[in-house]
């Protein structure tokens, strides 16, 4: 996993609540058996005027000029700010894969859906929860100041504006550690393989019906 320590980047606003993972990456792209290459289809139905297909060359497709990420001033954005309940709906990890592949390193919102929230961490994409009034203010600044950038410092758990205003955020200690070290969860868990085996063995004795090998 890509490490996250500090990041400074251009901010793009997505001024809506309940951005669902079907919108982040529509169903037809879930047919891929790869983990990469979803960036060109991020927000596909909002971003293009035609209907996208997997495997298609996206360079010649008509862009929706009204869609915020198509505006010239947000090209190269790496931090997205949205409203409540970002990432709701489907558990598809293709959503953080697409956001990350597009170039986003962090999403700032007042709240995230649970599954998206954990999927994001697994891919080095930092979901930052800030109070709704702070998000509202940041959305307004992003819209009014062209080229608005933010600095994210994970060790300090702070988002800082160019004029030095800082917004503190919370993160679980374990997740912070994994992100800062770029650790592989599976490798970490397998350090406890003996404990897992012991737990499993005693469960198998206590509730053997949980361990049928196949259907009758």
């Amino acid at each position: 996993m890509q490490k996250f320590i500090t990041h400074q980047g251009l901010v793009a606003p997505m001024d809506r609540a309940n951005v669902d993972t079907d919108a982040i990456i529509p169903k037809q792209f879930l047919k891929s058996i790869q983990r990469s290459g979803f960036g060109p289809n991020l927000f596909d139905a909002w971003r293009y005027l035609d209907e996208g297909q997997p495997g298609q060359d996206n360079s010649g497709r008509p862009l929706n000029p009204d869609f915020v990420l198509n505006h010239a001033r947000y090209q190269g954005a790496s931090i997205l700010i949205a409203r409540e309940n970002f990432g709701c709906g489907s558990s598809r990890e293709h959503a953080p894969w697409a956001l990350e592949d597009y170039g986003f390193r962090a999403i700032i919102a007042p709240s995230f859906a649970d599954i998206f929230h954990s999927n994001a961490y697994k891919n080095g994409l930092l979901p930052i929860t800030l109070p709704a009034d702070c998000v509202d203010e940041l959305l307004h600044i992003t819209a009014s100041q062209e080229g608005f950038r933010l600095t994210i410092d994970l060790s300090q758990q702070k988002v800082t504006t160019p004029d030095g205003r800082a917004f503190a955020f919370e993160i679980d200690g374990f997740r912070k550690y994994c992100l800062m070290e770029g650790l592989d969860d599976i490798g970490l868990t397998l350090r406890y393989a003996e404990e897992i085996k012991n737990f499993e063995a005693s469960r198998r004795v206590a509730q053997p019906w949980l361990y049928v090998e196949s259907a009758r």
Partner: protein
Amino acid sequence: MSAQTLYDKLWHSHVIRSEPDGTALIYIDRHLVHEVTSPQAFEGLRLNNRPVWRVSSILATQDHNVPTTAVKEIADPVSRLQVSTLDANCKSYGITEFAMGDPRQGIVHVIGPEQGATLPGMTVVCGDSHTSTHGAFAALAMGIGTSEVEHVLATQCLLSKKAKSMLVRVEGSLRPGVTAKDIALAVIGEIGTAGGTGYAIEFGGSGIRALSMEGRMTLCNMAIEAGARNGMVAADETTIAYLKGRPYAPTAQQWDAAVAVWNTLHSDEGAHFDRVVEIAADSIEPQVTWGTSPEMVTTVGGAVPDPSQESDATRRHGIEKALAYMGLKANTPITEIEIDKVFIGSCTNSRIEDLRAAADVVKGRKVSSRVKLAMVVPGSGLVKAAAEREGLDRVFTEAGFEWRNPGCSMCLGMNDDRLEPGERCASTSNRNFEGRQGTGGRTHLVSPAMAAAAAIAGHFIDIRNL
């Protein structure tokens, strides 16, 4: 020990170890797998030379991409590759798979319970948000991402933090024509699609105890639509009766021992919940969504809301966007909304009870001439066979419905079943998001009986007035 919730019991009985911040390693009893969210996980295992920890914990099926027409092979090469990749992965690791053509194949959240592969007291995971369905069996069931699928394949564990607890208590009796789907939509209308975020929801009260297992599955299925990763219902006689004799269920002495454990799987008297939501069962009316989020819902007697009446700017903006997408005008009565297609199916409402409820409405009637397509997609091959034994297929086809093969179908349109731009659908599925059933498609979520009634009338109609 102090009084525990069902969630406390399920959680604590699976924790192997905890980090200082509360992140816990929890043991997974059952892992359900389908073709869409697993290929990258198996690939990850291979790249790291890791074996599958416990092959017998896994049950795999093909559901999202499969055609529902009588074709033997998938036409779309991208879909076909995804399905054949699952076949290859299951063969290479020795995993039980119900592939296309197997009479037991079907939607992963229908076949797990149907096989008795979901049992009370289990932790159940699947790379699919609607895994909350299995909580209907007093199981701790949750949807996970593909990285977590790989983690469970490799370690039989999940890294998770205990959620807060919410009790949704529904007391009393539902009125005729009102179903578990209406409870689910009414709850989401009440608490919102983020109302359950960070919570595990237990559904309790006499109105829930009176539900069949099918009804409880519908309700827990939609817990995720309220934002909760887990929904659950206590185990009782209904749970135990449903499981008896199922292929993966225990038998003989093990059955008795299992039942003794299952009988403890309920919240203790006086257990503390972080939030309690109370709803009187007899206050619930048939529900119809009007917007692009399941919380955008009203009763069949209601009307499309007027954004100018909404004081909160973000919400007003949301309603305006939804009405524009849905092609609806403010204050339109729900019963005046005409439909183009009808979809009865999905992991929410494709079980035998759902098909019976829809067939009861349809029997002896005809699908309206303004409806271009009305389809019934049973949740599994076994549901389909059971329905055919009861003659439900003929009830549907004589009325003008198409009777299809099992799969996820037009709930999300990864196969060929989808809405065309601008088409409006009465759907028994779970999500009315923009483009969910097809780019530009417009979805209204309803119960199976309400969808059947809409097919006959050509517009939404109160099932109680049909």
